[in-house]
C-alpha cells in the first residue's frame, strides 16, 4: 500500500492550515474589535491562558494589540514559515525529528532573552523578542509534522478496513 508520502502530504497540509488559521486569529482579534467585539473578546480570551498579552510588549494592528505578545507572535509566524519551508528541506519522505543539538541551538536565543528579561538583567526591544520567537518557532513544525504523521499512521492502520485475502 502506498501510504507514506500521501500521509506526509496530508499531515503537512493539516499543519499548514492549522498554523495559518492560528495566525489569522491573532490578527482577527484587533481587526474585529470594533465590528464584532464579542468575537474579538473571545479570541483575546482564548489566547489569554497562553500569553500575558501585555500591550507594551505587543504589536498593534488597526489601533489594537494583537491577541498575543511580540515573542509569541514570532513563535507562531516562525511556525508557519517553517511549515512552508518544510517541503523544500524534507520533501515528502518519511518525516524524522531534528537533532537535539539543533533544538538546543535554536532555543538559546529565546531562552536567554526570556531569562534575562524575567530576572531584570535587561529589557529587550519588541523586535528582538519577535526575532527570538521566529528562530525558535521555525523548527517546531518539524516536530509537530513528525508526531502527527505517526498518530495519523497509527489511527489509519487501526481503522483501515481489510480487503478480502489481505493478511495485514
Amino acid at each position, binding site marked *: 500500500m502506498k501510504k507514506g508520502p500521501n500521509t506526509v502530504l496530508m499531515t503537512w497540509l493539516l499543519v499548514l492550515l492549522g498554523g495559518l488559521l492560528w495566525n489569522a486569529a491573532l490578527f482577527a482579534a484587533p481587526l474585529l474589535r470594533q465590528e464584532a467585539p464579542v468575537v474579538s473578546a473571545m479570541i483575546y480570551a482564548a489566547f489569554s*491562558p497562553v500569553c500575558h498579552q501585555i500591550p*507594551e510588549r505587543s504589536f498593534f494592528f488597526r489601533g489594537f494589540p494583537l491577541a498575543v505578545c511580540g515573542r509569541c507572535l514570532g513563535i507562531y509566524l516562525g511556525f508557519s514559515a517553517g511549515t512552508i519551508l518544510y517541503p523544500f528541506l524534507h520533501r515528502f519522505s518519511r518525516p524524522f*525529528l531534528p537533532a537535539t543539538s539543533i533544538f538546543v541551538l535554536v532555543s538559546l536565543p529565546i531562552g536567554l532573552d526570556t531569562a534575562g528579561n524575567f530576572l531584570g538583567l535587561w529589557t529587550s526591544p519588541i523586535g528582538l523578542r519577535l526575532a527570538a520567537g521566529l528562530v525558535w518557532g521555525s523548527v517546531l513544525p518539524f516536530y509537530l509534522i513528525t*508526531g502527527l*504523521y*505517526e498518530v495519523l*499512521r497509527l489511527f489509519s492502520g487501526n481503522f483501515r478496513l481489510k480487503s478480502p485475502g489481505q493478511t495485514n
Partner: protein
Amino acid sequence: MNDHKPNMLAPALIGGAVAGVLSGIPFLNCFCCLWIIGGAVLASYLLAKDSPVSLTSGDGAIVGALAGISAAVVDSLVGIPLHGLNVAVMRRMMERLSEFADEMPSGWENWLDRTGGGVSIAMFFMGLFISAAVFAALGALGGIIGTSLFGKKKAQGAEIAH
C-alpha cells in the same frame, strides 16, 4: 500503542497538573506557552522513564495532547478562586490599553463589570473547550519535543531505532 509501554494517563495528569497550576497563576503567566509545552515535556519524560522501550513521536504527541487537556481543566479550576484577581489584572491591562489604543470600543468598562460579577456555567465550559483545544495543540508539540529529548532507550549498548 504498545504492550510494553506504560499507561499514558498518569504522566499526562501529572504534567498537565503542573502546567495548569503554573499557567493559572497571573504573575507566572509571563512565560506564555512555556508552561504548557514544559508540562507536556515533563509528561513525556515521565512516560519515557517508565517505558522499557523507545517512544515514538506519536507517543509523545498523544501523551502531550492529554497533558494539554488536563492542564486546561486544572487551569480553569485554578482560575475560579483567582477570578477576581484576574479581572483586576485585566482591568489594569485594559486601562493601559486605552492609553495605547486609538479608540476603545464603547461600553468596555461594563463588559469588565459583567465578567467581574462571576462566570456562568455555559461560559466556563465554553472557555474550557477552547482552552483544551489550544492547550492540546501546544501540549502535543511539547510531548513530541520531550520524546526527542528523552524517548530513546539504549539496550545492551545498542540504540534501538524508532
